[in-house]
């Protein structure tokens, strides 16, 4: 499912909200998450999951094509951990 399909689905469920408004809502949600992450903040969406940045140590890696050794510097990566309610919703039969 893409963002535009998600917007349509959400818009169908809410009376009195135009598709355009729903689009702004969905964009705002993901933009706000992105912005907070870039400021180093941890995001906790209760029942859904958490997003946070972790720092990866530098390491030596190899170019798989040439076999050449390359240095990978310190870097930040984004982690998502699913929330308890979501995990339970997906695993209840």
């Amino acid at each position, binding site marked *: *499912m*893409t*963002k535009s399909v*998600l917007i349509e*689905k*959400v818009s169908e*469920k*809410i009376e009195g*909200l135009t598709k355009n*408004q*729903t689009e*702004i*809502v*969905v964009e*705002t*949600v*993901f933009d*706000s*998450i*992105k912005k*907070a*992450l*870039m400021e*180093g*903040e*941890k*995001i*906790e*969406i*209760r*029942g*859904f*999951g958490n*997003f946070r*940045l972790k*720092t990866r140590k530098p390491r030596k890696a190899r170019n798989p094509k040439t076999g050449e050794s390359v240095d990978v510097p*310190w*870097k*930040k*990566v*984004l982690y*998502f951990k*699913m929330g308890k309610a*979501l*995990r339970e*919703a*997906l*695993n209840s039969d």
Partner: protein
Amino acid sequence: MTKADLVDAIFEKVGLSKKEAQDIIEILFDTIKQTFKEGESIKISGFGTFNVRKKLARRGRNPKTGEDLEISPRRVVTFSVSNQLKHEIEKLDV
């Protein structure tokens, strides 16, 4: 950042009351959850993709007691960040 901050952001951007903004946030995450329950992945361009993956049963260990146990088969949601956002994050100071 929590859901309350998202509600505030929507309240400021769209002409909705706080209560309406709260409801729509719940509906948005419920819709996403429902999609996962159907086993479907969600791709948010410029952000990333959420995938639903099935894990088989496997042997595990309780790290506290050392006890052997079986980890039941389950479904998990994994997130892979979009290339665009990944590159923006990598540029941040460590």
